[in-house]
């Protein structure tokens, strides 16, 4: 059977996937809004368009985090084993990585939503 998910990567860096998505999302929101407000006209003058753009970036980021979470969930054996994953085996090391990555995906998911909240409540640059 062909698996819908890509093959597993054996690396420490996968741990940081979801937080990196948060960081890019944060940067995109901040930089876009800053340029929109500092250079009137360059990115248009319609604040609603900016909010729509932020909403788009947010949905994309959340989708990427969900994919990261799915991959992590698989690495964690779909939750078949309980923590603490402290056996001196490669398998437990993988399970630990999967679990920690899954937790970080959750935090990043919430943090992305927090970061997007300003676009819900503010309707202009207000400077």
């Amino acid at each position: 059977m062909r698996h819908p998910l890509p093959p597993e990567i054996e690396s420490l860096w996968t741990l940081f996937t979801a937080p990196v998505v948060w960081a890019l999302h944060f940067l995109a929101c901040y930089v876009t809004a800053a340029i929109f407000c500092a250079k009137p006209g360059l990115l248009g003058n319609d604040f609603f368009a900016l909010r729509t753009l932020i909403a788009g970036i947010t949905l994309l980021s959340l989708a990427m985090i969900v994919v990261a979470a799915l991959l992590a969930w698989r690495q964690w054996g779909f939750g078949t084993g309980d923590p603490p994953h402290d056996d001196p085996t490669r398998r437990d090391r993988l399970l630990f990585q999967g679990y920690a990555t899954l937790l970080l995906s959750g935090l990043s998911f919430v943090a992305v939503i927090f970061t997007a909240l300003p676009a819900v409540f503010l309707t202009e640059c207000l400077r």
Partner: protein
Amino acid sequence: MSAQPEPTRDKATEEAQLRAVWAKPTGWRYWTSVNNAQVGLWYGATAFAFMLFAGLLGLLIRAQLAVPQNDLLSAETYNQVYTLHGTVMMFLFAVPIFEAVAIFLLPPMLGARELPFPRLGAFGFWSFLIGGIFVCGSIFFGVAPNSGWFMYPPLATSEQAGIGADIWLLGLSFIEVASLAAAVELIVGIMKCRAPGMRVNLMPLFAWYLLIVAGMILFAFPPLIAGDLLFELQRMFDWPFFDPARGGDPLLWQHLFWIFGHPEVYIIFLPAIALLAMIVPTFARRPIVGYSWIVLAAVGTGFLSFGLWVHHMFATGLPQISLAFFSAASEAVAIPTAVQIFVFIATMLAGRVIFSTPMLFAMGGIAIFVMGGLTGVMVALVPFDWQAHDTYFVVAHLHYVLIGGMLFPVFAGLYYYYPLIGGKHMSDRVGRFAFWLMFAGFNITFFPMHLTGLRGMPRRVYTYPADIGWDWLNLISTMGAVVLGIGMFAVVMDVTLHRRGKPRGEVNPWNAGTLEWISEPEENWGVRSIPRIESRYPLWDQEALARQVNAGDWYLPDAKEGRRETLVTSVLDAEPEQVLRVGGTSYVTIISALTLGTVFVALTFKWWIVSLISGLAFMAAVLWWLWNGTGDIPEKDGKDIGHGISLPLYASGVKSVGWWAMFITMTGDGTAFASLVFGYFFFWTVHADFTGGIAGPGMFWPMMALALFALSWAATLAAREANRRGKLAVAWILLGSGALTSIAGCAAALAGPLTTGMDPTAHVYAAIVWTLVIWAALHGAMGGIMQLYCLARSLAGRLTARHDMELHNVALYWHFMLVTALVTFAVVGLFPEAL
């Protein structure tokens, strides 16, 4: 795998050899030691001394503010005192104390003999000591920095700031370099020098935290270094980065400072919490509950802390939509912090807690820190911060966070780890007495400040009127400060006097489970032999481990070749990969630090000749250090480390620790560069026409420079390939011509702004273009020196087809250099054309 003693070994000789190789030098040569146990101790003691000094300054502040209209200190003296109090506490205590603890503890905790670059660690310490004395000493001459610890221009760039501003900038830049050195050391140490079997899921939590913190330093400190550079260029050469009359903007400094400044709070906080993550399980008598949650909290905090910096700038008039993003991230960062606290609570709930003195400090710290966290949630809300910002409310908040989140945990760590220093114990009775004095004194001092601030008292005022309701609040704070001071004094007495004549106690009095408690304080070798780890708490789960390790039954129990050696293992599963030979006792670290320190001190006083000469001396010292101390070709290929494992003595490329160090250093360097590029675009957003009508460097010379640097990059890669295939002559030609091309590239880079006559003092556009171009040129020149270094090594036979780590590292440097050149010349050459 179990430890089988091998019958043919003469353990007594082995042990004597090992002891001789790792022996610390005696007499005055003691100070040339580079061993982590000595350097860590010096580092810690120095940081502690700076803390006491800054604490006395704090008491002076409180004495001045005890009553309204007090004239104990003049306005000018007060401004120097409070600036130095903040500066010393942040830069000379809070950050260095964690580097100290890490250097001291990590090797035994990871089961390593030593960190991978001991001389770099010692160099960092000497830099810190010299820079620290320079900065602190200034107050005795009345020329200490006086513009607040965040040095906002235009005040700090003005005449009024005097030489104090230069002392601050140069003295601290020097110390920031030391912090980056520590970050390199710690990241490579934690990733590559763990005991075999210590997989990432078995790593002590302290190491997890430190790994994240060291990574944060790489991204947090360079923006400040870039900011310092711009600042000093303005102060020395009148380049107008922060002068609005010539297109500059004072807010750029605030951005760069706080991109550093906010993560720094977490750089301070996480290592202290890491100590609690070691202490709490020991006294709860069980493994930590929620190991993965701690990893989540550390990594999550590490990332989120970079999205908070503007919350120090809520009142600067940025668009509210921008403020709101940072407010949101500032709220979000409270989540991983809460996770951390609840992990400790859960661990205590699931264990049987022994309430010792370290636990007392730990719990007191948590109670204080949680309060600081809650007021942090408050000030992170924009409307509330408009009121609270720059008032005593913020003073209260930051002391609750730093003292609860850092000082109390560090004291807990002091009481907990003290037996590792010489096997003696601190006094339990004095500890409890000191704790209650400190806890009460702290709250009496800082709790009223919340109210003082909301009743309108701004921070950084040397005096205040009598009749607006601040007098009795301030008097209470001052009385509390005295109590806090007495508590600290009790601990100092305990550390310095009390231990004399005390018998050596047990080394592991708490019956802790982690590896550092195996170490024998009398020995300088870290661990007698390096064990295979099978648990997060090996001393609890691996029976007889301590005895086997100290009997030399495990890996690498000897030093037959008379060299200091430690194991390098793989990142994820810690499989043994290499025996690494590390640097030993040497003067070169002190000489390097002294010469570099002289450069910075001489720059402060604008003694150009002295700084040029000491700069050259520093370069010579570093080259001598590299030439004689690194990249040695071993006398044999491999070494048997026992239990049938034989490992290579040499590695190059990705497998070598030097390659990792280069990668990490250049990541930090790249961040500083990115900060300068941020500055360029920041000026673009501030002005309708950011060029100020000045002609740019044109397109020809920037593109020419880019092409030359790209050629030099290609030559380096080709030289590496040629050398690998044994075609030495080809490699020599490539390296030589590569160096020449780099020099031509530097010239082309500078030719751009030179030929169009850009005057860096006339307008900020010219200044920032010059800065970027000089940055790229200096890096190109450095790349050229590296190519020549490889050429010399190869000619001297110290670099061969198989032993080619220098070439790999230089090629890696050139990858970064290529990106730097690409960005620089695209930005200065193409971006203005695209407008």
